[in-house]
């Protein structure tokens, strides 16, 4: 039985069936990061995928731009309880980047400029579930939101959508990334509230 808070509820927000449990809608775009915002020059930017055998494939910014670009409209959900509905992004599908990558790995560790890491199961990355994006709402992605490019895995809590992403390292076994070592769930499904350890 929940504890009631006397007099609470007068300012309640509208609910929406697109909101996972425990989330509230925001029109802002809050910024959450563990340290300073890295600044990455486009001519120095690289994105690399390394498979479990150590074979690496890498793209420069120009090479990324030459790949098929997709428009993505999606809801996003932060573990700190805000959600934004119908956000618009442009980027390259992870499926496109994995063409020609040989792997049987079950997990990937995303690495970022600035040292951030987060682990994601391969089944949550492939088949139209994730992208490396460089535009938000028609504008180049701000550095504080992860620009020049970030991962988005919109069906998981947004800490999995690594800002300033620089690559994926494929792993046979799951391992915790940065926030996963600091209290957050290994998977992070918003609909089942996989928030914390």
């Amino acid at each position: 039985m929940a504890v009631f808070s006397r007099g609470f509820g007068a300012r309640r927000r509208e609910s929406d069936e697109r909101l996972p449990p425990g989330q509230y809608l925001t029109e802002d775009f809050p910024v959450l990061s563990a340290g300073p915002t890295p600044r990455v020059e486009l001519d120095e930017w690289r994105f690399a995928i390394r498979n479990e055998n150590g074979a690496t494939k890498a793209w420069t910014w120009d090479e990324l731009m030459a790949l098929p670009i997709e428009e993505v409209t999606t809801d996003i959900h932060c573990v700190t309880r805000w959600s934004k509905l119908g956000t618009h992004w442009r980027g390259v599908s992870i499926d496109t980047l994995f063409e020609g990558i040989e792997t049987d790995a079950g997990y990937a560790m995303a690495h970022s400029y600035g040292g951030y890491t987060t682990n994601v199961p391969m089944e949550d990355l492939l088949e139209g579930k994730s992208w490396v994006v460089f535009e938000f709402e028609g504008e180049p992605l701000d550095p504080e939101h992860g620009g020049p490019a970030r991962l988005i895995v919109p069906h998981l809590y947004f800490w999995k959508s690594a800002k300033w992403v620089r690559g994926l390292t494929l792993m046979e076994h799951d391992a915790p990334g940065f926030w996963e070592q600091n209290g957050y769930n290994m998977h992070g499904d918003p609909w089942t509230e996989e928030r914390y350890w």
Partner: protein
Amino acid sequence: MIVGDWRPATISEVADVTPTARVLRVTVPDWPGSEPGQHVDVRLTAEDGYQAVRSYSLGSYGDGDAIELAVDEVPEGEVSPYLVRDVQPGDMLEVKGPLGGYFVWRPGGANPVQLIAGGSGIVPLAAMAKARADAGTGVPFRLLYSVRRPETAIYRDELERLAGDGGLDLTWVYTRGGPPGWAGRVGRVDDEVITSAVWPVDRMPDVFVCGPTSFVEHVADALVRLGHPAAKIRTERFGGA
């Protein structure tokens, strides 16, 4: 870090500390204790079952079943106006936590510590400053606290007391106006302030920055530009971009 289930809690004391902020003392039976800098989720349930949850930094730390939250009102908010304007001793809510294992200061390190707060970003940093005093450690602490005006500072008296005891080197930055007779500068934190009030790079300070997003972005960028290694700077941002 400990999370646990939702715990029923009772407001024991409310204190208006600024025109828009209130400190809430909350009794949580069987509270497992927390480390300086951690936060909690707070859940409010209306009589018809409607619920809302928000995260708040803890201004307290350590053992015991009394915790302290400092809540600054977000004018169009749903939860903070209730906590700042409506809630009274005896009212109930639920808490989950403590949460967070990164933006935490643990006694024992040798490096000096630099705290940099903007507005209500002082809350977790005040817990660290109190913990430093209680631990009796010789680790030198500096606090740079940016507020609009003196009356908008949370924990002002407590911080002055910690500074007076000699354990905390406290620098105020007033962005709109200083106290009566203030002869110092008025304006936002800039390179000059950082250079004069923050531990120099060669002392290798552990830096904690907390405040509104724009404040933290501005300060963290400046610290990096002035040579502080990014890996030594921990940040906690709140509010919309």
